[in-house]
Structures are given as structure tokens and as C-alpha cells.
């Protein structure tokens, strides 16, 4: 399903940590986004209240998920929007390819959609001879560079202005190098403008799918989402099943938290609510609208009460903006469509723990992500849970996450057995710490990864247990 490989995580990390330009781009961009977010939440109590409210909304909707999905389908169909269910990424691609083929579509304009990245839609459609053009400026840049998004909100955040200027010189006819942001955006927009009018099909994502009314809500800043969903005759929206919410009343608080957490905006420049295709007598709008609902491992997360919290995510990106690991390695090193903390907890359900066991362990569990997550996902706790599933014996029941035991190493398992044995026996423990302190001269100076940039710690001459024992024996306490 994915072109990029998560199995190369360790290698990717080394590569990207050693790229000073990339490090600088990410640090600068994340600092900017963190400041923006902070300025949008100056009232701590309001933040706490709204966060609690949104967490509850998402939890309520997840609790009723099967019912809400049925209701959503019913209401969308009543509104004239056709609904398609895809269990796998392949199914999603096939459904979309068929819809396009039926209309003899040859060109697609796409609004930003991470789910379409998840199914690798562009690659699939291109194999069928359909041209796909990304119309979100960041996505457009990434497409020109033949890369993948490095951030779920800011796909081209890994590139700076001058890098984009050079890219445009290569790809846009008549573009003279500039690193001025407005000039760059104008040049990109000129290319895109024509394409909107020529395209047969528009593909977009969905931020909230409202069950009560059968409404697809799309949050965006550039107007390209509106173009994609109104200009071509056929509009296909694709999203994950967890994006369904119960009622329209749920939208305002979620929207407020989404835009403020993502970019610090009080509201996005555009907010589209799509309820039906062009009606008789209307002059514009798509003639047909379809929604593809993707599972791809989400029902596995849903089945477990703790892991279900993963599905509360509204894809704001705040967790990656605040993640000290993401800030340093950037989005591509993960080798997954969703990078950063949310990627670490969501991807194992999509690809299994066999392929992704490096991800949950690549965290110091610092908790910065949980602190800013607007829907209160306990990300560190879920990482711990996935670590547990990852080192569990493969055959142990119940099998909650596919690829269970994918990160289990027999030697490591044995070490922890021994460790537990020592640490639940006071005398074994005291004997071993005494040994450690007495034989500290035997301790190697090279402790593998630890000593590449640090000296090895030196055991004390005597343990605290011993020192206190001696003091007590002498009937004094220093």
C-alpha cells in the first residue's frame, strides 16, 4: 500500500538527523507553529473546558460509531450523495477508479486529503492513465518534488522558500527564481487556476461527516477545496470512518479547536459544508457527489476500549508540532503517511506491528503531545500499550493488534525476566548493586549508543543502601 518504507526507520533517522538544512527548516517551522498555537489559547480555563467538551464529543460519537455510520449513509443518500465502503486501501482505490472510468474521466484535481495519501490514490490513478493534480499549495510543491507530505497539515514544511523557488524554476515555465512567498504562491496559483476548469473530477477529504444531516464538512485555507468540490462535474470525497460525528451542534467546538491547534487561526479561511450535488435549476456545483468511507485498520483500533482513543483524532497536527522527536527527524524519516505521535499510534493498526514496531519505541514518552492534543488522546499511554503488544509472545491471546509480537526479541525478553527476578528479591538486588559498585572498574567505557556522545556513568563506591545501613549501625544519621 505504501511506497515509503517504515522498516527503514532507523536508517532514515540517521540520514535526516545529519541534514542541517532539514533540521533548521523543521525547528524553525515548529517554533512558529507552537507560538501560533500558544497565542490562540491564552485563556487556560477556556482551553481546558473546550478540550474536555471535544474529547467527550468524539468519545460519544465513537461509542455510537456503527449506528452513526448507518445514519450518515442513510442521510447522505437521501441528499443524493452516494456512499461507498472500503475495508482496504485497494478497495478504496478500485471504487474511485471505477467512478472515474464510468464518467470517462481523464484528469483529477485534488484538495488536500491525507486519507487519499493513505491509500496512495495518485499512484493508483496514474497507473490507470488518469492525471492527478494536487491543488493545495503544499501538496502541489510536494508533488512537483516527487515527494510525500512531511506533515499532515503543512505537507511541504520540510522545504524552505529558496528550495521551493528552485523547484518552481525547474517545473514552471517562465518562472524566474524568487524566494518571495507571495511571488511563489502567485506562480503556483496561476498554474492551478486553469487546471480547475479543465478537470473532470475533484477529489477531497472530509474533516467532519455529520450523521444527523448528511453533511460533509471540509476545512481549508486556500479555496482549492471549494474549487475541487464545486467546479468539476464529479466530486469524490474520501475519509476514514472515524470522521463521523453525530450532529451539527458538534461542529463549532471541534472546528474551533481544530484550527486553533493546527495553525493558531480562530477559524480557517474556508469552511465548506457539502450536503448534496447540483439541484435542478442550480447553475453550478458537481452533478454527482460520492463519499468513500475507509476502514484500513480503524475497526481494529475501535474494538479495543483503550486503543479506540486513537480514533478521537481530528488531525490537527499539534502533536507533531510539539514533539521533540518529530522536530528533529522531520516527517519523512517515519516512512509512514502519518508522521509524528499520531502516526506512531495510528499506523500500527494500518500496517501491523510487524512492520511498525520501531515506531512506538521511538519516543522518550515526554508527554508534550498529550499536553496539546485538543481531544485529549493519551498518546504516551497508547504508545506504552503498543509497546506491550509489540513484545508480547506472538501466540498469546487475545490478538488485539495485528502483527502482535512483531518487536519481540528473545534475548531482550530474557533480560527483563532476569531483571524482574533481581529486583523483586532484596538480597539479590543488594548483592548485584554491591557487585556493580565494587567492580565499577570493570565497567566498559564503551556502552554502545550511550557513549557515542556521552561518557559512561560511574557507579558510586558504596550504594545508598550500604551507606544508610552503616550509618544506622553507628547509631547516627550523619
Amino acid at each position: 500500500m505504501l511506497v515509503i518504507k517504515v522498516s527503514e526507520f532507523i536508517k532514515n533517522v540517521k540520514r535526516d538527523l545529519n541534514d542541517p538544512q532539514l533540521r533548521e527548516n523543521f525547528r524553525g517551522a515548529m517554533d512558529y507553529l507552537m507560538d501560533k498555537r500558544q497565542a490562540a489559547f491564552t485563556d487556560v480555563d477556556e482551553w481546558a473546558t473546550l478540550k474536555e467538551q471535544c474529547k467527550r464529543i468524539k468519545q460519544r460519537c465513537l461509542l455510537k460509531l456503527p449506528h452513526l455510520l448507518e445514519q450518515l449513509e442513510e442521510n447522505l443518500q437521501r441528499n443524493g450523495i452516494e456512499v461507498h465502503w472500503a475495508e482496504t486501501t485497494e478497495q478504496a482505490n478500485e471504487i474511485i477508479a471505477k467512478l472515474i472510468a464510468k464518467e470517462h474521466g481523464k484528469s483529477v484535481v485534488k484538495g488536500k486529503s491525507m486519507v487519499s495519501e493513505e491509500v496512495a490514490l495518485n499512484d493508483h490513478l496514474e497507473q490507470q492513465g488518469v492525471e492527478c493534480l494536487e491543488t493545495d499549495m503544499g501538496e502541489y510543491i510536494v508533488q512537483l518534488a516527487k515527494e510525500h507530505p512531511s506533515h499532515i497539515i503543512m505537507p511541504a514544511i520540510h522545504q524552505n522558500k529558496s528550495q521551493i523557488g528552485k523547484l518552481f524554476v525547474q517545473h514552471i515555465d517562465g518562472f524566474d527564481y524568487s524566494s518571495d512567498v507571495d511571488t511563489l504562491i502567485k506562480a503556483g496559483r496561476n498554474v492551478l487556476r486553469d487546471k480547475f476548469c479543465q478537470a473532470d473530477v475533484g477529489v477531497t477529504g472530509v474533516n467532519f461527516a455529520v450523521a444527523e444531516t448528511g453533511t460533509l464538512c471540509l476545512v481549508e485555507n486556500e479555496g482549492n477545496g471549494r474549487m475541487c468540490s464545486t467546479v468539476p462535474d464529479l466530486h469524490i470525497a474520501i475519509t476514514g470512518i472515524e470522521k463521523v460525528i453525530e450532529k451539527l451542534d458538534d461542529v463549532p467546538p471541534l472546528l474551533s479547536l481544530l484550527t486553533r491547534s493546527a495553525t493558531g487561526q480562530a477559524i480557517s479561511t474556508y469552511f465548506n459544508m457539502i450536503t448534496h450535488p447540483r439541484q435542478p435549476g442550480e447553475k453550478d456545483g458537481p452533478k454527482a457527489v460520492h463519499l468513500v468511507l475507509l476502514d484500513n485498520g480503524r475497526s481494529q483500533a475501535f474494538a479495543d476500549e483503550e486503543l479506540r482513543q486513537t480514533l478521537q483524532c481530528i488531525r490537527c497536527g499539534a502533536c507533531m508540532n510539539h514533539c521533540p522527536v518529530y522536530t528533529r527527524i522531520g516527517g519523512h524519516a517515519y516512512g509512514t503517511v502519518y508522521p509524528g505521535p499520531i502516526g506512531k499510534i495510528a499506523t500500527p493498526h494500518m500496517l501491523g506491528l510487524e512492520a511498525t514496531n520501531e515506531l512506538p519505541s521511538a519516543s522518550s514518552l515526554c508527554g508534550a503531545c498529550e499536553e496539546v492534543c485538543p481531544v485529549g488522546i493519551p498518546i504516551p499511554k497508547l504508545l506504552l500499550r503498543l509497546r506491550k503488544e509489540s513484545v508480547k509472545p506472538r501466540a498469546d491471546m487475545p490478538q488485539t493488534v495485528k502483527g502482535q509480537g512483531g518487536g519481540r526479541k528473545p534475548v531482550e525478553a530474557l533480560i527483563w525476566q532476569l531483571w524482574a527476578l533481581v529486583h523483586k528479591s532484596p538480597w539479590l538486588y543488594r548483592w548485584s548493586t554491591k557487585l556493580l559498585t565494587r567492580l565499577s572498574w570493570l565497567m566498559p567505557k564503551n556502552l554502545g549508543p550511550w557513549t557515542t556522545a556521552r561518557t559512561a556513568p560511574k557507579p558510586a563506591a558504596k550504594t545508598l543502601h550500604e551507606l544508610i545501613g552503616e550509618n544506622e549501625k553507628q547509631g547516627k544519621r550523619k
Partner: protein
Amino acid sequence: MENSVNIRQYPHKPAQVYLYGTCLVDSFYPQSGLDAIELLTKQDIEVIYPQGQTCCGQPAYNSGYQDQAKAVALHQIKQFELDIPIVVISGSCGGMMRHHYPALLADEPGIQAFCDRIYEFSEFLVHVLNIQLFDSGNKERVALHTSCAARREMGAHETSKKLLEQLSNVELVEHQYESECCGFGGTFAVKHGDISVAMVEDKTKHLLAEDTVRYISGDWGCMMNIDGALAHQKQPLRGEHIASFLLDRSVGDKGE
């Protein structure tokens, strides 16, 4: 994690407390344990150090080996049977025992009562003892590094600051990215060594920029990481455990 730090009810000053020394202090930095005991004793508190204590279980817990962590955690709670506060000289181990034991040992009767007795060292000094420190040291500027668990689970960045602010001759400076993780994270530092190194190198850079002689922390895990990197860079800056620092600053109050 919630806001349990904010809504915690604190008891009156007790006559006795337990000290939880942590495995790292036990084998590598015992002086911090002795200093914490001395400081508490000076406050007329009897400190009991159960010799049966070993490790809170966090290393196994964070590595996914929860059964092993559970066995070790279970052994800890049996060492602290008196109903008196347990003062932990690490925010990280304190966070583990206070906030992760309830789920890990959910089937253990009375587990919540045990967890409710856990206090991080600076939290205990500020909120339970309401300590008034007397500063007899020379003028000094220091930076503060709070471990992530100490900060987010125990609120120790606030209580540590409160303590340092009581010292009239100490100027507390804030380093850039103060709230950012130092990159330790236990086995993370070994499993994902490259990322951890990138993080600790940034942390040392920001601490060094403040040009202090020492930086203060309540967690030896972080300090082992940061000091290790500083020593590797041949920099003289070193960390000091907050217990040792406070004791060091207040030795003059003996003859008060």
C-alpha cells in the same frame, strides 16, 4: 495525568516519612539520598529508608514488559507498610508510582491508598512542609531542568521554582526550550540512540548558553544523560540534585 497535581489535598506535616531513593541514586548517586535525608531530618522529620526497596519498575514498564514491571512494583509496595508519606527523590519514579501503579496494579487491594502517599521531593517540601529556606550561600545563578514526568505528572517544575526562589542569593535563569525533553527516556536512549543524542546535544547547548556553574534538577536520570553529554564535550557544567543544592545552601542555618 489529568489535573491531579492541582487538586491534590495535602496533609499536615508528619512526624515520619519514608524515603524512596530510586535504583539510580542507590548505585550511582547515593549522596543525593543522604542529602535528602539530612534536609528532611533538619525539619524534625524521622526518615525511614526501607532496605528492601529496589526499583519502581519503570524500565520494564516503559519497554512493554508489564508483567515484569508488575512483579517488581508489587515488591515495592510491600516495603512501605506504615501509613506515612513516601517521599521520592525523582519525579520520574514518583510519577510512575503515583500515576501508573493504579492501572498496573489494579487488582491489588489498597493500591490507590498507596499511590496517594507518594510525593515528589520538591512537592513535599513546598506543599506538605511549607518549608521556609534560609540561604547562607554565596551569590549564584542557576538553571533548572525538570524531567518530563516530574513536570507533567508531578508539577515539580513549579515546586522546584518555588524552592529556588526562596533562596535570596540564588538567581534562577530560564534556558531556551526549558520545557523540552533532554532525550533520556530510559531504554529510548539506547534503542533510538541517534535521536536521543540529537536531543541531549540541544539540551546541553541551551544550558551552556546560560553560563552557569551548575544546573539543578530533581531527576538523576536526566542528569546522568545531560552530564554524560557535557563531560563528553569536555564542558565543566554539571547538574546538582535539588536536595543536595538546598542542603548545600542552607548548611549555615545550623547555628541560626
